[in-house]
């Protein structure tokens, strides 16, 4: 195998890693804020899936990627806010409501997909996905430019969000309040600050991120909706948060590891690795269990994660 060929493969693999990382990163960062606010939301998978379907359907119906994008985000927010009503206001068991949202999403999108299939005359319409944006100057850097700076606009946004969320959580008074919510919501309540208001806000942010992630999946990474296309990414986001110890930068690292595993899987077949592709597909999931086995730290897990707040 020639050196040039090897290099081309590596570049395309790392470039794919960064591309694949974007939705995973968006949804993980959103879920981080949600969990820091004390809400243990397992329904991100469903939220993303609903957003992906909505984004696809809206962009096909309107022939506009932007309307699709917006619709996806709105759906993500709507699903997350329904969690807010159930978990924060009605104080239903967060674990079960999250699972319920996942089940509802997979059933409903499958049904609506099949029905819309009929509507579109038995054919699956494809969309012309968002193009990548080469950053002027930076994308000219050899190798690195191709890997990092010739990506979708959402990829840049996802990486920027890591910094934004970090600064918010650790450098602002509101971030301090969100962190305090997960640790001891009563500390806010006794000072007359609304616990539920902040939890709604955190979920709205998480919904924006999950909606964006779902939309990116359909509108940038592929050209059509496939039932259950999120394929466990929402669950991976939850693993990533545990592995990243509820901190933005380690979460970024964990996202890159999982994204690399997936990119490797995509490339491995192309370069004739003689491994069953299912093993490669299963790698992120096996990796998640192994990663958690090695984890000895749980220090930053919010104390009140998943515990509904009652004033008593």
């Amino acid at each position: 195998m020639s050196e040039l060929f090897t290099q081309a493969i590596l570049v395309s693999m790392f470039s794919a890693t960064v591309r694949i990382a974007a939705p995973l990163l968006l949804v993980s960062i959103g879920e981080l804020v949600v969990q820091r606010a004390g809400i243990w939301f397992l329904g991100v998978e469903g939220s993303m899936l609903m957003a992906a379907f909505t984004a696809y359907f809206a962009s096909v119906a309107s022939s506009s990627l932007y309307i699709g994008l917006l619709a996806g985000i709105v759906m993500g927010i709507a699903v997350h806010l329904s969690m807010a009503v159930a978990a924060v206001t009605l104080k239903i068991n967060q674990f079960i409501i999250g699972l319920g949202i996942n089940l509802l999403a997979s059933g409903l999108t499958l049904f609506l997909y099949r029905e819309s299939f009929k509507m579109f005359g038995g054919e699956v319409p494809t969309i012309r996905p968002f193009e990548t944006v080469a950053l002027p100057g930076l994308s000219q850097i050899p190798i690195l430019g191709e890997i990092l700076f010739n990506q979708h606009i959402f990829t840049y946004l996802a990486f920027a969000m890591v910094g934004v969320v970090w600064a918010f959580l650790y450098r602002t008074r509101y971030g301090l309040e969100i962190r305090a919510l997960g640790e001891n919501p009563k500390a806010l309540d006794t000072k007359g600050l609304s616990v539920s208001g902040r939890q709604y806000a955190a979920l709205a942010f998480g919904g924006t991120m999950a909606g964006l992630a779902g939309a990116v999946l359909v509108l940038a990474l592929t050209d059509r909706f496939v039932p259950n296309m999120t394929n466990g990414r929402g669950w991976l986001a939850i693993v990533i948060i545990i592995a990243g110890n509820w901190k933005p930068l380690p979460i970024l690292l964990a996202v890159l590891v999982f994204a690399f595993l997936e990119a490797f899987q995509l490339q491995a077949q192309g370069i004739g690795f003689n491994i069953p592709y299912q093993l490669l597909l299963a790698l992120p999931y096996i990796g998640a269990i192994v990663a958690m086995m090695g984890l000895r730290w749980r220090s930053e897990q919010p104390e009140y994660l998943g515990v509904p707040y009652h004033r008593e």
Partner: protein
Amino acid sequence: MTISDYRIEKRADVGMIGLFAQALVAIALAFIASGLLLTVLGFDSVAAFDALRKGAFGTWRNVQGSLVHAAPLAFTGLAVAVAFRARIWSIGQEGQLFAGAMLAYFFTTFLNLPAIITVPLVILAGALGGGLIGGLSGKLKTRFNVDVIVSTVMLNYIIAYLLSYLLTSRIWMAPDEYYLQTDRIPQEARLPNLWRGADLHLGVALAVLAIIVLHVLINRTTFGFSMRAFGGNPVAARFKGIEPRRMIVIVLTLSGALAGLGGVVQSFGVDFRLSQTFLYGYGSAGLIVAVIAGLRPLSIGLVAFIFGALAKGGLFMQVMADVSSAIISAMQAIILMFFLVTSVLFQYRLRRVDRDV
């Protein structure tokens, strides 16, 4: 003069009747909601639901079909109930169901024995396959502190890919087979019908047996007592000699074994082959069944029958009214959501307060 005032109060306990009413209200609301959805999509929802009813209960044959559909749901429902009663949040029923069916199928690929030996072996293998995967999650928790939710979800995906590999590599698939599915299971390994000409097979009887056994186990035995104590308050349970590690592994193994049996019942009693999609969704449906049944084995039998009827009727509805049967899994989730919301409302009651003025 006395005037009456109404005050909203929290009740201490909803009780069996309250839970029953709550489930009925949730199912009714789910029908209304999905009926609206169908109407919006241009279907005649009354006709569709009528087809659903006929499909589920129209003839004795259809009722038998509903029972056959209910059997695996009863098993996964029981699997969920066992774990959740101990407040161990396992959602690995899907993977354990496949694992049970896969291990059982593995034995049939080389065993050539009469049915009288093969059938019990197949059933045991199903329990073993599911139990091993459940126990693995338990060990991962107690030995390495891997979250049970995470390990069970990840194992669901891993097992699905393992089956996919066994099929596409044609280890379990005939070379000329087009669909991703195994060869048909040999006659002597299939679960026999309960009587000549019946649609009900041994698996349905096994499900009824499992419901009764679990009812006794949870409510009447010292083990069930320890398990419920652990679920109610693991700290107090530990102070009173209930070892948490042992409890977690035993409960998850038992839960996995039940799910595994569900896999055998469906694939050896109905499908007669394994495929990537035949078993899909029984795990999550079982979760909904168990939650709506209040994690009580006897109620799980009833709710599983209702859900089995939905599934059976859904297939008929697809043919008769051209409504995709995928609506059924959406409806199951909608029932769960309405059930959760009504459970909050049912916690309160209006009480009349008489005041002297």
